[in-house]
C-alpha cells in the first residue's frame, strides 16, 4: 500500500504517441458543419490540441524568470502577445531528450495572469509536462502558479476577407485595425460566451472559448457566415 501512497513525479518525457491518438477535440464532431459553412470569403476550422499553460505571478523577478524560461519578454498590458521559441533553438530549457521545439505565444490576460500557447505536443514533440516543469522550476518558491489548462479551451480559426464582418455582428469591441491590429489578443465576450479573441493575421482570427461552449460558438459563427457562403 505504501507504494500507492507515493506521489508520482511529473513525467518529463514526450507523451506516448499511442495515447495522443485517443484524443477527441471539443469541436471534432462539428468538422462537417464548419466545412459546409465555409466558403471563399470566410472559413471556419478548429485548431485542436494547442498546449495552453496558465501562468500567474506577481513579483517582477518571478515574471521575468518565467519569461526567460519561455524565451519571451512577458507582455505587460492588455492586448499584448509576446512571441518566442521554446525548446531547442530557443532559450527555453525543456528537460526532455527529444530534439524538438515549438513557437510560443504568451497572451496577457490580467496584470498577474498570462496564457502561454504552444503547438500541439503531437506535432511539436514538446510535451505539456515538459513545459509545465520548466516553468515551475523557473517560478521556484515564489508566489504564483503554472497550470496546464490545455483542455480548458479549444481554438477556432475564422479566416477570410469577410471574417471581420462575421465577428462584427457579435463582438462588441472595435475590430478596425486601428484599434485591433494584427497580434492583439483580448479576453472578452462573444454573444454571452467568454472567449479570448486573437487577431493572428490581417484576415485571420482565433477564438478560444471554453471547451463546453465549442458547439454553441461554432453554431453561432456558422449562422453568421451564411450570408457569405
Amino acid at each position, binding site marked *: 500500500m505504501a507504494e500507492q501512497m507515493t506521489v508520482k513525479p511529473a513525467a518529463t518525457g514526450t507523451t506516448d504517441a499511442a495515447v495522443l491518438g485517443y484524443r477527441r477535440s471539443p469541436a471534432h464532431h462539428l468538422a462537417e458543419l464548419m466545412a459546409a459553412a465555409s466558403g471563399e470569403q470566410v472559413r471556419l476550422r478548429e485548431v485542436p490540441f494547442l498546449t495552453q499553460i496558465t501562468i500567474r505571478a506577481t513579483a517582477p523577478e518571478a515574471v521575468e524568470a518565467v519569461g526567460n524560461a519561455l524565451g519571451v519578454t512577458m507582455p505587460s498590458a*492588455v492586448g499584448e502577445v509576446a512571441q518566442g521559441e521554446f525548446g531547442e533553438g530557443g532559450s527555453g530549457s525543456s528537460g526532455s531528450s527529444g530534439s524538438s521545439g515549438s513557437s510560443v505565444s504568451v497572451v496577457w490576460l*490580467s*496584470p498577474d*495572469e498570462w496564457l502561454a500557447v504552444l503547438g500541439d505536443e503531437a506535432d511539436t514533440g514538446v510535451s505539456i509536462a515538459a513545459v509545465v516543469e520548466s516553468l515551475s522550476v523557473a517560478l521556484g518558491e515564489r508566489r504564483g502558479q503554472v497550470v496546464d489548462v490545455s483542455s480548458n479551451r479549444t481554438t477556432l480559426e475564422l479566416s477570410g476577407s469577410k471574417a471581420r464582418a462575421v465577428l462584427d455582428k457579435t463582438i462588441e469591441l472595435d475590430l478596425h485595425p486601428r484599434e485591433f491590429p494584427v497580434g492583439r489578443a*483580448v479576453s*472578452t465576450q462573444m454573444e454571452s460566451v467568454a472567449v479570448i479573441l486573437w487577431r493572428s493575421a490581417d484576415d485571420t482570427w482565433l477564438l478560444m472559448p471554453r471547451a463546453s461552449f465549442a458547439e454553441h460558438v461554432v453554431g453561432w459563427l456558422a449562422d453568421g457566415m451564411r450570408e457569405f457562403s
Partner: protein
Amino acid sequence: MMVIPCPFCGPRNETEYTYGGQAHVAYPENPDALTDEQWAQFLFYRDNPRGSYAERWQHSAGCRKWFNAVRNTHTYEITHVYRLDQARPDGLPKAPLATKEVGA
C-alpha cells in the same frame, strides 16, 4: 448600455462586468462585539444616494480583477475608476451610512 473603463483593460461594455455593491464598507474589527442590529447594519444596509456613489465592480469576462468606480446614480456617468489599493478620490462622501453607529 454603460461602457465601464476597467483600470487594466480599458473601456468595455457593462455586460463584461459583475456588480459588487457599495465600496469601502469595512469589515467590523470585532464582529463578536456587535449587537444583532449592528451586524445587520453591516450586512444589509447600504447608502442609496442620488449622485456620486463609490461601487465595486469586477471585470468578470476580462481580467477578472475587482476595482472601484465612482458612478453617478442619476446620470450613470462614471467619474473615477481606481484600483482597490488606491485611496478613494477626494470630494466623495466619507464613511458610508452603513458604518455609522446604530441609533445615532
